[in-house]
C-alpha cells in the first residue's frame, strides 16, 4: 500500500521548511535509514525549496504513517505542535493523487511551473540508484511522469507566462515577430530591468545599452550583457536607436517625455517602439502611448496580463484535475490487482505441489506405460488443474482491481488453506 508523508509551503512556514531541508541535507544515507524503518518496502524522498515529502510502499499503513512522520519530525527537530500542524500523511488513493498533483505542478506555488517535474525525476533517479524502489513505486513514478506530461500537453496550464518579465518578452514578440537583431535599451540598473533584459537576450535580442545616472553602475550591468553604457544625457540618441526600452529608475519625475519620443520619430523612420515602464513612480510620460507605432506598457498593464494568464491557468487546472483523477484510478486498479498476486502465486504453487506429489505416488504403476503415454497423462493432469484454477484466479484479479483485495484474498487463502 502506498503512503505519502511530508510538508509543503501551504502547511509549513519557511522557518520549519528550512530546518527540515537542512536536516535532510546533512544526513548522509538518508534513504538507507528510511529503508531500515520496519514495514517500509519501497521508499522515495523528494525535497525542494517548497516541500519535503516521502513516498513509500508499506505493509501496515497506520504504523508506517506514524513512523515516517516521526522520522521527518526528528530530521527537522520539529516540536510536537509543529509536527502536528505542518506534517500531512496520505494513504492509498489520496497519496497517489497527491503525488500526481505535485508532479503535474498542480500543488506548486506558481501553478503550472516547469521545474517540479525535473525535481521529482531527480528524486526518483536517486532512489533508483540506491535500490530503494521496487515494482509498486517504479510503476507509480512512471505513472506520475506520464500524468505530468499529459497535463502539460492536453491542458493550457503552462501556456501563457505568469511572470512580469516573461510577459514583457511575449509582448515584444507580438510586436516585432522575431527579436533577433532588435536593440534593447535599459534605463536604470534595477534588478527587474536586468531580468527582463536577460529574457530578451535569451529570446534573440542582441544589442543592449544601459543608461544610468551613474555611469559606473551602468558600466557594471553593461559588462554583464557585453553591451554599452551611457549617461542619461545621451538618452535621446539611444532611444532613437532602440527597439525595446525598459525603464526602472527611482526618478521622481518622468525621464522619457512625449517630446523626446516625437523628436526621434523621424530619425527612427517610424520603426515600431516598445516601451516598458516598470518604475514607480513612472519614468515614461503616459502621453507617449498616444503616438503612432509606439507601445507603452507600465507595471500595472503587465500585472493585469499576468493576472489574466493566472486566471486561465486556474481554469486549465480544473481540466488537469480530471486527468489526474483518471490516472489515479488506473494506477490504483493496477496496484490492487498487484495485491492479489502473492495469493495467486501461492495458490498455483500449492496446486503444482499436489500434482508433483500425486504423480510421484503414481510412479510405480505408470512404469509400465509405453513411450509417450506418460507425457499424455502429465498434460492431462496439468490441463485439469489449470482449468480448475482459472476461474478463482480470474475472479481474484478482477475483484481486487475493482474493490479491495482484502476480502476475496482472505477467502481464497481460507478456502484453499494457503496459510497452513
Amino acid at each position, binding site marked *: 500500500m502506498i503512503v505519502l508523508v511530508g510538508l509543503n509551503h501551504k502547511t509549513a512556514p519557511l522557518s520549519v521548511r528550512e530546518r527540515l531541508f537542512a536536516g535532510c541535507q546533512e544526513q548522509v544515507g538518508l534513504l538507507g535509514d528510511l529503508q531500515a524503518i520496519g514495514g517500509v518496502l519501497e521508499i522515495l524522498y523528494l525535497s525542494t525549496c517548497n516541500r519535503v515529502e516521502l513516498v513509500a510502499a508499506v505493509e501496515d499503513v497506520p504504523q508506517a504513517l506514524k513512523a515516517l512522520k516521526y522520522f521527518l519530525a526528528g530530521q527537522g527537530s520539529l516540536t510536537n505542535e509543529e509536527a502536528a500542524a505542518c506534517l500531512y500523511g496520505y494513504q492509498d488513493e489520496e497519496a497517489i493523487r497527491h503525488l500526481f498533483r505535485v508532479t503535474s505542478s498542480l500543488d506548486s506555488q506558481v501553478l503550472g511551473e516547469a521545474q517540479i517535474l525535473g525535481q521529482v525525476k531527480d528524486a526518483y533517479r536517486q532512489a533508483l540508484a540506491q535500490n530503494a524502489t521496487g515494482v509498486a513505486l517504479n510503476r507509480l513514478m512512471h505513472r506520475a511522469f506520464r500524468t505530468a506530461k499529459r497535463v502539460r500537453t492536453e491542458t493550457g496550464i503552462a501556456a*501563457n507566462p505568469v511572470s512580469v518579465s516573461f510577459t514583457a518578452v511575449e*509582448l515584444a*514578440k*507580438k*510586436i*516585432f*515577430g*522575431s527579436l533577433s537583431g532588435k536593440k534593447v535599451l535599459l534605463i536604470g540598473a534595477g534588478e527587474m530591468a536586468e531580468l527582463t533584459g536577460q529574457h530578451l537576450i535569451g529570446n534573440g535580442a542582441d544589442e543592449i545599452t544601459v543608461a544610468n545616472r551613474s555611469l559606473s553602475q551602468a558600466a557594471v550591468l553593461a559588462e554583464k550583457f557585453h553591451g554599452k553604457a551611457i549617461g542619461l544625457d545621451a538618452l535621446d540618441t539611444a532611444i532613437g536607436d532602440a527597439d525595446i526600452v525598459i525603464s526602472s529608475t527611482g526618478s521622481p519625475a518622468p525621464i522619457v517625455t512625449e517630446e523626446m519620443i516625437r523628436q526621434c520619430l*523621424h530619425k527612427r*523612420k*517610424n*520603426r*515600431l517602439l516598445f516601451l516598458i515602464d516598470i518604475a514607480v513612480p513612472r519614468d515614461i510620460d503616459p502621453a507617449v*502611448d498616444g503616438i*503612432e*507605432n509606439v*507601445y507603452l*506598457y507600465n507595471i500595472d*498593464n503587465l500585472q*493585469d*496580463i499576468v493576472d*489574466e494568464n493566472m486566471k486561465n491557468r486556474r481554469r486549465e487546472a480544473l481540466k488537469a484535475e480530471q486527468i489526474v483523477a483518471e490516472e489515479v484510478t488506473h494506477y490504483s486498479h493496477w496496484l490492487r490487482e498487484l495485491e492479489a498476486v502473492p495469493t495467486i502465486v501461492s495458490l498455483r504453487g500449492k496446486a503444482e505441489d499436489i500434482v508433483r506429489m500425486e504423480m510421484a505416488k503414481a510412479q510405480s504403476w505408470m512404469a509400465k506405460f509405453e513411450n509417450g503415454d506418460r507425457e499424455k497423462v502429465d498434460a492431462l493432469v496439468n490441463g485439469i488443474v489449470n482449468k480448475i484454477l482459472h476461474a478463482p484466479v480470474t475472479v481474484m484479479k478482477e475483484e481486487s482491481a475493482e474493490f479491495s483485495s482484502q476480502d476475496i484474498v482472505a477467502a481464497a487463502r481460507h478456502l484453499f488453506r494457503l496459510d497452513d
Partner: protein
Amino acid sequence: MINLEMTMLALSLLVCTLATAGFLLSLLIKKIELAKVSTWILAIGFLFLTLNLLGAAIHSSGWDNFGSRHFLSIYAWTISGIYLGLQLQTKTRLLGAFISPFILLFLIAAVGQGSDKNLVPPEWQGWLTTFHLVLAIAGEALFVLASAAGAMFMIQNNLIKHKKPGSLGRLLPSLGDLDRINHLGLLWGFPLLTLGMIAGAVYAALVWGSLWPADPKVIWSLAVWIVYGVLLHQRLAIGWKGSRMALLSCVVFALFILSAVVIRFCFSTVHNFI
C-alpha cells in the same frame, strides 16, 4: 475535356470552401492548429485550380475559349499562390482567414460564369493583351494580400494599444510580420500593376490610336494606381510604417473594390469580362 476542367473547378471550389470554413473557425475558436490544417487544404484546392487552368490552356488555342470564368479562376489562383508561397517563408497561417474569403468569392463567381462568352474579341488577341491581363491580375492580387495584412495589423495594433492582447492577440501574427507582408505586397504589386497598365496603354495606342481611352475602368484604375503609388512612395521615401500604412491600404483597397463593382454593373466598358 470541358467536363474534366469543370470537375477540377468544382473540386477546387469545394476544397476552398472547406479551407475558408476551417480558417474562419480557427479564428473563432482561437486554435492555430486548425489554420495550419486549412493551409494544407487550401494547397490542395490550389492544385485542383492549377489542373483546371492547365486543362483550359491546353484545350484552347490562344484566347479563343478564355472567358470570364478563366479570368476569375486566374485571380483566385494567383491570390492563393501568393499566400501559399508566403507560408513557405513566414508563419502567418492566420492570414488565410483574411485572404481565403476573397479566393472563395472569385471561385464562386468563376463557377457561375460561362466560358463560351469569348470575351476577349479575336481582333484584340495578342501577346500584349496577355501581358496586360496577367500583370494587372498579379498586381491586384498582391494588393489584396497587402490589404489583408493591413486589416490584421489594425486589429492586432488595437489589441496591443488597449493592453488587451488576450487570446486573439496571441493568435494573430506579430505587428512586425504583418507590416512586412504589407510592405512586400505594395513593393511587388505596384510595379506589376504599372507594367500591366503600360502594356494596356501601349496596346490601346497601337490599336485604337489613343493612349488613354475614355473608359471608366481605365480612369478608375489610373486613380487606384496613383493612390497606391503615393502609398508606396510614403512608405519607401518618407518612412511611413505600421498603423498608418495599414489603415491607408485598407481604405484604398475598399475604394478599389468599390470601383470594380460600380464599373462592372453601372458602366459599359471594354473591360466588361471581369
